[in-house]
């Protein structure tokens, strides 16, 4: 039983770190552009589909890991330029246009990849003994990869000039503009970066879950929960909340069932929204 719970907690940790990557993209897009990107889950889904395609054609998972986020960046640039930028002044309209994008992405995948879910073989087969159970090596590798990507993002944000600009725009757009920061360019690249993170999450998650055109619709609520519970615009809080939620859901679903776990975390989220709308971790480092 204890070993079983340990496995569930580990699964939750790996999954939570992947969700954190996606939620982070959602959060920076929201923080810098005021855009609620409803298509963000579908970007994750496209990442998985492209990873599957890359492995089928080149046979190399490493190639997918490099190429797919770059494609995501290109997709993000095009989306921001044509579907977001013209209506950036009206946040409600951007929700609608990202909803349109979500329909297009899902249907494009259904038309080309097909409606049936597929499996991608883990690039690192085998198991390791952890807490008395045999645990899949790939899941551990996925957790490490997601954690590294998160660390890289935070370093990028703290240590580079562009990262500093990003923080400035999120903090106070008007002042950033008067200080000569190219706000429009920062927003464009932020959207692209957010999209790239979602596709990267899709690649890392592909061998763990099934590759399916509906995967985006399923993961989006979890990402929103992480963003809200962590506090809108609080990036470390978002990452922490994603892991916390996934571990909780993993353990609760082990004790009863996955739907009960979902309901538990949704009730937790309502409580946070109503009692601490600034997020659980407000006041902690931004």
């Amino acid at each position, binding site marked *: 039983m204890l070993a079983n719970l340990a496995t569930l907690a580990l699964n939750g940790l790996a999954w939570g770190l992947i969700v954190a990557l996606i939620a982070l993209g959602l959060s920076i897009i*929201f923080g810098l552009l005021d855009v*609620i990107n*409803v298509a963000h889950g579908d970007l994750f889904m496209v990442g998985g589909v492209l990873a599957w395609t890359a492995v089928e054609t080149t046979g190399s998972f490493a190639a997918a890991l490099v190429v797919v986020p770059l494609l995501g960046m290109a997709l993000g640039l095009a989306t921001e330029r*044509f*579907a977001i930028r*013209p*209506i950036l002044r*009206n946040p*409600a*309209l951007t*929700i*609608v*246009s990202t*909803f*349109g*994008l*979500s*329909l*297009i992405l*899902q*249907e*494009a995948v*259904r*038309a080309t990849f097909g409606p049936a879910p597929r499996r991608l073989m883990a690039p690192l087969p085998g198991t390791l003994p952890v807490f008395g159970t045999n645990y899949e090596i790939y899941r551990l590798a996925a957790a490490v990869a997601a954690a590294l990507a998160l660390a890289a993002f935070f370093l990028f944000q703290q240590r580079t000039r562009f990262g500093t600009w990003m923080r400035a725009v999120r903090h106070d757009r008007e002042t950033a503009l008067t200080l000569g920061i190219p706000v429009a360019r920062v927003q464009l690249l932020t959207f692209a970066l957010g999209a790239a993170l979602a596709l990267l999450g899709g690649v890392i998650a592909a061998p763990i879950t099934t590759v399916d055109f509906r995967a985006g*619709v399923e993961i989006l*609520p979890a990402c*929103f929960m992480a963003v*809200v519970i962590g506090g*809108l615009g609080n990036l470390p809080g978002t990452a922490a909340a994603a892991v916390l939620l996934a571990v909780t859901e993993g353990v609760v679903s082990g004790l009863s069932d996955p*739907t*009960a776990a*979902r*309901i538990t975390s*949704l*009730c937790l*989220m*309502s409580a946070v*929204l*109503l009692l601490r*709308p600034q997020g659980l971790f407000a006041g902690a480092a931004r």
Partner: protein
Amino acid sequence: MSVTAINRTLTAVLLAVLVAAPWVLPMFEAEFWLAITAEMLIWGLFAASANLLFGHVGLLSFGQALYFGFGMYGVAIGVDRFGLGFWPALGLGIAAAVAMAAVAGVFAVRLTWHYFAIITVVFSLIFYFLALRLKPLTGGDDGLSFAPPPVARFGDVTLSLGDETVQYLVILAFAVAAFAFQARLYASPLGRAFAAVRESERKAALLGIDVLKVRWIAFVIAGGLAGLAGALFAFYGRYASATYMYYVVSGEAVIWTIVGGTGTLLGPGIGAALLTLVREELSTVWEHYLLVVGAVVILTVVFAPRGIAGAWNAALARLPGVRS
């Protein structure tokens, strides 16, 4: 002539066409369209509930499917479990939706903008998962089917939903009543209070308007509209299912509203009609018609941000001899 006068005339013509449809369509051997028109009316009502909140009070709800689902289940459970007739079951569906909105509204209206949008989704997701779990009551994913009871009996004559014309006219009557109600509502003092809250919460409060109360009333009325749409849809499809409570369905109501024209009376109906039309017609020609829907949605908000109704009014106002 003024834009309003032209639109009033067109609305009257539209109403006449809708009333005459059951007798006109068979002349062209197009009875098939009667059912589609009925569906358009139902989705138009559903979109109207999102429009009431977003277009008139400035609250973007992504959770209207919850009240649609309560309307559906109220009817299905009422008929299937309690053996209710048409009118009591319809009443139960609407009452369930209104009660749910009254409770959820107390919490939701304290939040605004993004937080409001998110909490409405969260509430609807909680009940979506509950509905999936309570299989004995709701049928879960498979849904709950039932045989619809007769609408009314006059001596030997029984009006039943099995008759396409009766079903259509019942749905049309409710849709027309709901739109007449909305027209009155938006012209009433309460409707003015809605607009005041939408334009500026602070100014509204300074004018002595109880902002939270006004928002709550709007939330409950919108829940009732969504519940009515759900109840009618349950009778129309003869079943209820948890899938209609998922957040994607709520999202569609918002999309239809904005594509049709936010804050206008007929805009949500136009948007819903357009997308139902595309779904029914284009889907037979091309399986992947959703690509077109997605593109249309993006193009509409980018090039006609006021929606179809807004673009129409702007075009009318530019005609010679028309006052805006």
